[in-house]
């Protein structure tokens, strides 16, 4: 159960951080007319196609005592970043980035541009328009982003193994725990954990689909 709790904490931290980081990134990608936009789009989507071990490998190198991030971390906090919970969060944020950014972009782009014009004409600047019009109308997208990054982080294996290793209570997440149990032929315990993950994944996806059918958004068109 310790592993499950750790995974939950990790996934929750990652989901919150990704909402905070992902929102401005998605806003920029949805609304700017910058020519080089496709480059940023590719970078954001990279974790979708990259093997987790590749991402994990580079994250590990960057976080190691001789990597730029590792050096900075040691200078700031006196200890390394690799094989810590913080390192795990950082790698997971990178790994789940597209799962937060892409639903946000889709919902921002779905907002009728005339509403943005109407807001501007009524005296609202960019920030006010964002808070009062774009964000409320993109709520399903934001929920999808949070839920998907939570679920994706919960189930990750390769990146965690590369960056976090397998330290009980620090970096041993539920998927690694399952792997451990299977390695030691403890199929019963592996099954219990696997069932919990399966149930959580199902609930999470149901939430995403329900929200996107606008089951819970009161202003939905009939």
């Amino acid at each position, binding site marked *: 159960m310790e592993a499950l709790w750790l995974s939950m904490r990790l996934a929750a931290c990652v989901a919150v951080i990704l909402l905070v980081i992902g929102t401005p990134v998605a806003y920029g990608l949805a609304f700017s007319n910058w020519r080089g936009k496709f480059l940023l789009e590719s970078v954001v989507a990279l974790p979708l196609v990259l093997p987790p071990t590749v991402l994990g490998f580079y994250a590990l190198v960057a976080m190691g005592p001789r990597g730029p991030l590792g050096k900075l971390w040691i200078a700031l906090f006196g200890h390394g970043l690799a094989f810590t919970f913080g390192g795990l969060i950082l790698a997971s944020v990178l790994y789940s980035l597209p799962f937060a950014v892409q639903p946000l972009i889709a919902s921002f782009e779905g907002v*009728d541009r*005339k*509403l943005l*014009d*109407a*807001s*501007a*004409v*009524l*005296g*609202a*600047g960019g920030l*006010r328009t964002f808070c*009062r*019009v774009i964000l*409320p*109308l993109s709520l399903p997208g934001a929920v999808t982003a949070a839920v998907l990054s939570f679920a994706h982080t919960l189930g990750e294996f390769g990146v965690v193994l590369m960056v976090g290793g397998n330290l009980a209570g620090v970096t041993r997440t539920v998927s690694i725990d399952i792997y451990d149990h299977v390695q030691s032929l403890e199929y019963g315990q592996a099954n219990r954990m696997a069932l919990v993950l399966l149930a959580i994944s199902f609930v999470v996806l149901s939430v995403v689909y329900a929200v996107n059918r606008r089951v819970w958004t*009161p*202003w939905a*068109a*009939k």
Partner: protein
Amino acid sequence: MGGEVNATMLAARIRKERRSADASSFVLDVSIEVSPGITILFGASGAGKSTLLDCVAGLARPDEGQIAAGGEVLFDSARGIHVPTPKRRTAYVFQTLALFPHLSAEENVAYGLTELREEERREQVEAILKAFRVEKLGKQRPDKISGGEKQRIALARSLVTEPRVLLLDEPLTGLDAELKASIVDDLRAWNAAKGIPILYVTHSREEVDALGERVIALDNGRVASTGRPMDVLDAPRRKKLAQAAGFENLLSATVLDLREADGVMRVKLGDSACEIEVPLGYAAGDILLATEPPRGLSARNVLDGRIVSLEQRGTMAMARVDCGIAFIVHITPGAVRELELTAGRRVWVVLKTHSCHLVE
């Protein structure tokens, strides 16, 4: 408009070029002055009406020109002034209305009132909803509100902010005439006290007649004419504008003889043998049909022809008549029955000189 800026007028001199993907370019090049009250901006679609409004509101940036309203310069290419949209205080009601779907009618109207205290804001919202007769709908979301009432709320939302100018882009499309008239009456009543310039875009001839005020006619990015609806639309000199204004019969003609003393000219229509007196552009509803040669008529032009086709169009019938040149004639279904009009029947087309207009 020079250096001075009139305190109540909207004055705009705008040049804006737009290139589309197929390399065709469109140039909006206009200079207009709009005094307080309703001014109609009329023209076929693609004439540049919406682009002009977008430039005034700051949603589009002209390549060159000046825009001033309410005594303040909003845009001046020479001086590098481009006041951003939120600071222009130009109210703009779009054809789609763009009411915020997640906010109630009240919240929509209060949206632009950020600088007021809560209490004042509520008072103003209540007052303007009342002025536009929608005070009972304050708590409703837009999707629960009917057409007509939505338009009223959109107007209220724009006007509550005390704008310098009101821009209306076909805001009453799709409403019946009675409803339109009552909304326009409420708008006039509101503006009687405020006296701001209102630029009302439409491509509907009926709406122009109903509003009956000053008209600026746009054609292909230029001001084709300005004046009262009668003067602008009854003598449309440009073909596109003439079609938009409802002149279905646009004929080419050769002048045979000009008799200035009588105020008429004899022309030959197209390559046909028809000769009539006057200049050209007939509304299909202004043409009479007779089943025998008419006698003792004041109309000077009677042409002999044959009905080519006859079709029912809503509450009227449309006949194509070949007199050597084709005319489109609108007649009532009753007349079709009574005169036993059918395709192939010989008829006489009667043209009134005064319903004929010279069109370039």
